[in-house]
């Protein structure tokens, strides 16, 4: 048999194998795309309704007899605003008279309504004595009903609103006094136990402070370490050990850094619990190895000819690094830093150890105020019994994903724009 016959005989089989091999690759890609699509679709489908919120229009008479004539702000803040809201509601439904029914009626309006009215009066004390139409947030149960998460058709005992309440809501609907509007509360408020009053802003600010500390510490330290190791350190056993350890640190589970933070920053240095400053320090420890590794890779990719040319015209070692190598390596370093930061932004486990997993309503105003972070907020809402938090959880995930995608896009743009290929 000639050689060509042997080849021809196996040819079909080899073609088939080739085809199969490509098919495996396509299957793998399709599978991962399906998972990704499933994730995005389920989050999107659950969460998009959270960007709208049900509001009820009330005709509020800023009654001077209830608010008192006191014009100084101290007193007006503690006036009986819930009373004003309740009064306007009972004027809307004059047929509701019994105590029990009134309670049911009042429970249609969020407890946040009185804060809306209070803030209006504090901002503009002239309102006292006048009548205005005000849109106030509805209770989360009403919100769920309007959005269709609670069905109207089912038996009264199987939903959280009884038939009477549903009939009142339907009356409000007929009169155009109830509508879904863009949910600004979600983007401006801190955490709350009432789904209709809960927002992500407190968590976003907490994440921002934490990331600021992380960036301010990990980038300079990481870059300096990388430059020394790459450009100045002699290659010997010590630098080998350091290199191996840095690579190991990059793979350490993040909870370990949380434990370290608890032991060193909280217990030894006595820093405050739940503060972004400690969160930032812990995240710094976590992102440092990532940044060092990326920065060293960026420095390595600068061709030796640049260094030799600089040294050849009489530059010192430091001038060579600072004037020539660093500017060329910087885009790569920034990319590494951004990816490290994106990882830190999505991290909860270490924050658990240092007390940042907590119920915090006030928006943090500094590095030492108690605060949470975005992924922590998601975790806390996912664990809340109220139905309204289900969509809030998905919406918060969308906000977090938006930040992550934006950061990764920034890394890509930086690389595309500034990176030099040799």
């Amino acid at each position, binding site marked *: 048999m000639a050689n060509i016959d042997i080849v021809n005989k196996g040819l079909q089989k080899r073609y088939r194998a080739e085809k199969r091999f490509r098919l495996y690759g396509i299957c793998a890609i399709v599978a991962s795309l399906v998972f990704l699509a499933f994730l995005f679709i389920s989050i999107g489908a659950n969460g998009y309704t959270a960007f709208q919120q049900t509001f009820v229009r009330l005709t509020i008479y800023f009654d001077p007899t209830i608010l008192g004539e006191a014009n100084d702000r101290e007193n007006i803040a503690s006036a009986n605003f819930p009373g004003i809201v309740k009064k306007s509601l009972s004027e809307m439904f004059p047929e509701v008279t019994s105590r029990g029914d009134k*309670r049911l009626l009042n429970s249609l309006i969020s407890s946040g309504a009185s804060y809306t009215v209070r803030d209006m009066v504090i901002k503009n004390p002239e309102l006292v004595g006048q009548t205005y139409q005000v849109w106030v947030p509805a209770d989360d149960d009403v919100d769920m009903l309007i959005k269709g998460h609670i069905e109207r058709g089912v038996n009264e005992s199987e*939903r959280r609103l009884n038939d009477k309440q549903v009939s009142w809501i339907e009356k409000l609907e007929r009169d155009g006094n109830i509508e879904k509007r863009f949910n600004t509360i979600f983007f401006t408020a801190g955490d709350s136990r*009432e789904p209709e009053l809960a927002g992500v802003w407190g968590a976003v600010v907490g994440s921002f402070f934490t990331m600021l500390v992380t960036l301010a510490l990990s980038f300079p330290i990481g870059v300096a370490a990388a430059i020394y190791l790459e450009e100045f350190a002699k290659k010997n056993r010590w630098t080998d050990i350091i290199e191996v350890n840095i690579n190991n640190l990059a793979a350490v589970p993040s909870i370990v850094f949380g434990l370290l933070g608890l032991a060193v920053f909280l217990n030894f240095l006595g820093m405050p619990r*739940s503060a972004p*400053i400690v969160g930032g320090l812990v995240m710094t420890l976590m992102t440092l190895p990532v940044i060092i590794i990326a920065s060293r890779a960026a420095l390595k990719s600068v061709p030796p000819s640049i260094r030799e040319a600089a040294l050849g015209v009489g530059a010192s070692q430091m001038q060579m690094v600072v*004037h020539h190598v660093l500017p060329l390596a910087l885009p790569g370093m920034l990319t590494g830093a951004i990816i490290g930061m994106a990882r830190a932004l999505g991290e909860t486990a270490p924050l658990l150890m240092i007390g940042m997993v907590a119920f*915090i309503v006030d928006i943090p105003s500094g590095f030492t105020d108690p605060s949470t972070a975005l992924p922590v907020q998601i975790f806390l809402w*996912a664990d809340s019994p109220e*139905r309204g938090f289900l969509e809030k959880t998905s919406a918060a995930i969308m906000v977090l994903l938006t930040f992550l995608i934006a950061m990764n896009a920034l890394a890509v743009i930086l690389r595309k724009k500034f990176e030099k290929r040799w």
Partner: protein
Amino acid sequence: MRGKKFLKGLGVAAALTFGAITFSGNAVADSARDYINVVGSSTVYPFSTVVAEQFGKTSGFKTPKIESTGTGGGMKLFCSGVGVQHPDIANASRRMKKSECETCEKNGVTDILEVKIGYDGIVIANSKKSAPMNITRKELFLALAANVPEPGGAESVVPNPYKTWKDVNPALPAVKIEVLGPPPTSGTRDAFVELVMEVGGSSFPWIKALEKSDKDKFKSICHTVREDGAYIEAGENDNLIVQKLDANPNAFGIFGFSFLDQNADKIQGIPVEGVTPVFESIADGKYSVSRSLYFYVKKAHADVIPGMKEFLKEFSSEKAWGNDGYLSEKGLIPMQDDERKSFSADVEALKKLSCGDL
């Protein structure tokens, strides 16, 4: 030149931030804290947070910070000492243990105020799609314990042979035993073991006798939950259990009453010994699987942390923990009138708890 400036800037920035961070960190640790710091049970967390939010929005003080650390973890933090770096209040889904109280005393936390806030029912529930059934604690013990008394009646235990509910009691349906419940780290699990498994086990006289003679053996029989797939540890996330029950009508779930209350359209509570878990039956003590919820206050902090006394007053007010209070809307079962009165008097007087009473 640009690069040089950059490097200088980098160094200066790093030095400055590091200095600023160490400085501000220490500064805060030394100065007074202006918000209340609460730690402890994840069961009390939903109630504590509602009061905190209400307090923060109406009183003019900062909103208290509440961490859900679990009862045991909270006690550890609470008892670690007196001073602003330690928490002021610890939430607990059980009474403080004597050993915890002694640790507290050793660390200088001698003046503690104990406040009971109400009750929480633990419910066994299944999907509304499946038929309702009645169950006893003995049946639950037989279905869920890793080792059960030998079916023949001998005074020894065998690995749990029961596959379906019918095997446990012929009156029950022939459905595979499938129960989703909390993991051992959870306070709900502790309470379930104590209120259901121990009681169910004690319905056998010889096991009950063990409680006195051989406490370790008693514990190993009653506290060990089977691991052959009939009991599924569903994590701390009770919402997940509700979703799984909705998808699988044959499964049962174990969780706090507030989750049943919020999801009454999807799941139903199973009557235990003929008593359905509803608000009223837990409040008057007829429903047996319920526990008391507490919080503990460090009296030494009452005058140091702004708003402490006002927060306690808010928590013990009728509009919060009363029969029609906002906590009952969140699923807390209020105490009887006279019990509430006596505890709010304790709060008023900052009555001291002595370890001997525990």
